[in-house]
């Protein structure tokens, strides 16, 4: 019974990839978690994807030096002003 309901590794990893692991319907979510508890491969896959998401979030928010921005604004305006 459980075996038939249990999502396959491929289904689990696809859920992980589209970020739908935690907003699946309740029963499905329970089965996904159970699968992750039992399957070290999917667990590794899911942990790696979590680490990737976290790192991408950081990279996607570059730290800009305010001085760099200020100097760029000045030069850009200088260029844009009609001569």
């Amino acid at each position, binding site marked *: 019974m459980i075996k038939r309901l249990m999502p396959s*590794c491929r289904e689990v990893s696809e859920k992980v990839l589209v970020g739908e692991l935690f907003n699946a319907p309740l029963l499905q979510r329970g089965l996904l978690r159970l699968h992750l508890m039992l399957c070290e491969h999917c667990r590794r896959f899911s942990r790696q994807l979590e680490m990737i998401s976290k790192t991408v979030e950081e990279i996607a928010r570059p730290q800009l030096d305010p001085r760099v921005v200020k100097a760029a604004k000045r030069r850009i305006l200088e260029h*844009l002003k009609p001569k």
Partner: protein
Amino acid sequence: MPTDISKDDIRALKEGRDGAMAELVNSHTQTLLAVSFAMGFSQADAEELAQETFAAFLSALDRFEGRSQIKTYLVGILYNKAADFRRKSYREESLDKIQDDFEKRFNESGLWSRPPLGPEESVLTGEIKELIAQCAEGLTLSQKTAFFLRESEGESSEDICNILGVSYTNLRVLLYRARIKLRECLEKKWESGKHD
């Protein structure tokens, strides 16, 4: 930070009124530089892209009908400029290959036939972060831009689709592929580092 622009502002820009251009540049340079950095451009290139974006916007003010937010509109211009800039060296990978390679990792019953390798710890160490950052350099311009807009600007999927000129389905596929690619890359780098 002002994100929208009124008809009056557009008129002021058209008439070349004092301060109108300065306000435009002051309000939006930071975002344009940030997206360029997130795309992987150097400081000098980022500034040039931002400048060209403003110039293109100002030379075709009529085309901006105030339908979208000005920020979204400007990032859209910048994205197209960046794509031109990169076109010479830019090659979109065969789209199906990533998917194919991923599917090959499973057997017919959906079990791993080639299980994932790479880091198995649950904490994100500096080393892993560094490897992922290196891998992210290999993402396409559209993937990098999509991540930036979502993570940094909190843009809606609708706006991201408009900027990239793709459908919602395309956007999902694009991000899905980016994640597969990053993980494959992380695995490769991690395993080759271990056996050096």
